[in-house]
C-alpha cells in the first residue's frame, strides 16, 4: 500500500509541470498562436506633405491620390508700410501631383514668375522599414524640367525652344528618426540650357537640408535650407532658408512659413533667390495642399 501510494504521488508530481504549462497558457490564449515569423513594417509619414517647404520631401502620396497645391509667397517684410510688409506682392504656383502607385508621384505646375511650367517625376527607391527588413532611411529620386514661357529677351537673334528648358535631379535621403523628428538631405543638380552670361555655369550643384519637429499630432515645425556650391554671385545670390509650420486639418495641409525665397520651383529657388534674412528681406508664404482620392 505504502509503496503504491508513493509511486502514484511521484508520478502525479512528475506530471505537475504539464498541469502548470496548461494553466500558464490560459493566462493569454493568444500566446499559443504567436507569430514567430518576423514581418517588415514600413515607416510612413516622415513629413506631413510631399514638400518640406519649397523642395521635395521623402514623403509620397498613397496610390490614387491627387494633390492640388497652391503655393504663395508675398514680398519682403522689409518693404514696410509702403508695400504693407510685402503683402502687396505675390508669387503663385498652382500645381497637381498624382500618384499612380504608392512609390511614384508625377506632378505639373505653373509659376507666375517667368511664367514657368514645371513637371517632375518622383520615385521612392527605398522605404525606411523596421522588423524583418531593417532600413534606417528612405531614398527617393526626383527628376524634373522647368520650361520658361516668356517671350525671348532678344527676338533679333536666333532663339531655340531648348533654350527655354532647365532640368533638375535630386536624390533625397531621409529618415524619420523618432516619432517627432525627421531629417533629410537633398543633393541636387540643376542644369540650365541657357544662362545669362558666358561665365555662368550651366550646371549648379546644391545640397538641401530639410527637417521637421512634430509639435502635436497635427502641427509640425519645419526648416529647409539649400546651399549651392557654384554659380553663386557673391553678394547677389543667396541660399534659400525657410522656417515654418505645417498644420494638418484632415484633407488639407497648410504650410505657413517665413523665407527669403520667392522661387516656387527648383530652378527658381536655387538660382533666383536674392533676398537676405540678415537684411530683413523675409517673405511670408504659404502652401495649401488638398488631397483627393481618385
Amino acid at each position, binding site marked *: 500500500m505504502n509503496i503504491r501510494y*508513493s509511486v502514484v504521488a511521484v508520478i502525479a*508530481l512528475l506530471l505537475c509541470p504539464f498541469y502548470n504549462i496548461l494553466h500558464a497558457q490560459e493566462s*493569454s*490564449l493568444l500566446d499559443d498562436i504567436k507569430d514567430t515569423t518576423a514581418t517588415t513594417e514600413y515607416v*510612413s509619414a516622415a513629413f506631413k506633405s510631399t514638400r518640406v517647404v519649397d523642395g521635395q520631401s521623402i514623403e509620397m502620396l498613397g496610390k*490614387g*491620390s491627387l494633390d492640388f497645391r497652391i503655393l504663395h509667397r508675398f514680398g519682403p517684410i522689409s518693404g514696410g508700410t509702403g508695400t504693407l510688409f510685402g503683402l502687396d506682392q505675390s508669387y503663385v504656383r498652382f500645381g497637381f501631383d498624382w500618384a499612380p502607385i504608392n512609390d511614384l508621384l508625377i506632378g505639373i505646375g505653373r509659376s507666375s514668375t517667368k511664367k514657368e511650367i514645371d513637371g517632375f517625376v518622383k520615385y521612392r527607391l527605398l522605404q525606411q522599414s523596421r522588423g524583418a527588413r531593417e532600413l534606417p532611411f528612405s531614398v527617393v529620386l526626383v527628376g524634373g524640367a522647368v520650361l520658361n514661357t516668356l517671350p525671348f529677351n532678344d527676338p533679333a537673334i536666333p532663339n531655340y525652344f531648348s533654350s527655354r528648358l532647365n532640368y533638375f535631379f535630386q536624390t533625397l535621403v531621409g529618415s524619420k528618426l523618432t516619432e517627432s523628428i525627421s531629417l533629410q538631405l537633398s543633393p541636387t543638380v540643376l542644369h540650365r540650357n541657357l544662362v545669362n552670361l558666358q561665365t555662368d555655369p550651366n550646371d549648379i550643384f546644391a545640397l538641401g537640408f530639410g527637417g521637421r519637429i512634430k509639435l502635436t*499630432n497635427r502641427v509640425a515645425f519645419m526648416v529647409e535650407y539649400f546651399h549651392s556650391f557654384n554659380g553663386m554671385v557673391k553678394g547677389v545670390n543667396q541660399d534659400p532658408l525657410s522656417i515654418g509650420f505645417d498644420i494638418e486639418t484632415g484633407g488639407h495641409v497648410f504650410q505657413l512659413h517665413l523665407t527669403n525665397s520667392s522661387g516656387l520651383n527648383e530652378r527658381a529657388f536655387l538660382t533666383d533667390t536674392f533676398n537676405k534674412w540678415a537684411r530683413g528681406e523675409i517673405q511670408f508664404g504659404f502652401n495649401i495642399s488638398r488631397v483627393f*482620392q481618385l
Partner: protein
Amino acid sequence: MIRMKKIIAIVVIVMMSSSLTFAQKYFTKNGNVSFHSKTAMENIDAVNKKAVAVIDASTGAMEFAVLMKAFEFERALMQEHFNENYVESDTYPKGSFKGKITNSSSVNFTTDGSYPVTIAGKMSIHGVTNDVTAKGTIVVAGGKINAISEFTILLADYNIEIPSVVKDKIQKSIKIIVNVWLEPKS
C-alpha cells in the same frame, strides 16, 4: 505519513484531471474586423483582415488582437490620419479584446448550428481599456466556428480626440463588426 502522501496524491490527481478535461481551442490569424463611421459629410470604412482570435470552447474564454496599422481604408490619406492622428499606432500598435461568452453552456461546439451569445470582456484601444459587452452569434459548421458580432464604441471612451474642424465628418460612436472563422487548434 502514509495519510499525508495519500492526500497529496489525491489533491494532485484531482487538480490534474480538472485541467485535462476537454480543452478544445479554436483559432485564426486571418479574422475580419471592420469599423464604420457614417455622417452626412463623409463615410469611413476600414477593414482588418489579419485579426488574431482564439476561443476556448471548454470555458467560453476568447481573445482577439489586431494590429492597428493593418486596417485598410479606401483612401490612403484616411489611413495615414487614422494611424498618425487618431489611434497613434506607433505608440499604441495593438488593439485587443479579452473576455468570455457569458452563456457558453448554451453553445454546443460539437453540433452544427447557430447559437446566439453574449460576450463580456475588456477591450483595449489607444492605451485605454474599457469593459465591453456585445451580442453575437456563434455558428458551428463542419468543425469550424464562425463568430459574428456587431457593436458600437464611443471614441471619447478611448481618448481618441476629434478636432472641431472634422467633427462633422467622423461619428462619435463607431460601429465595429467582427466576423471571424476559427479552426480547431491541433
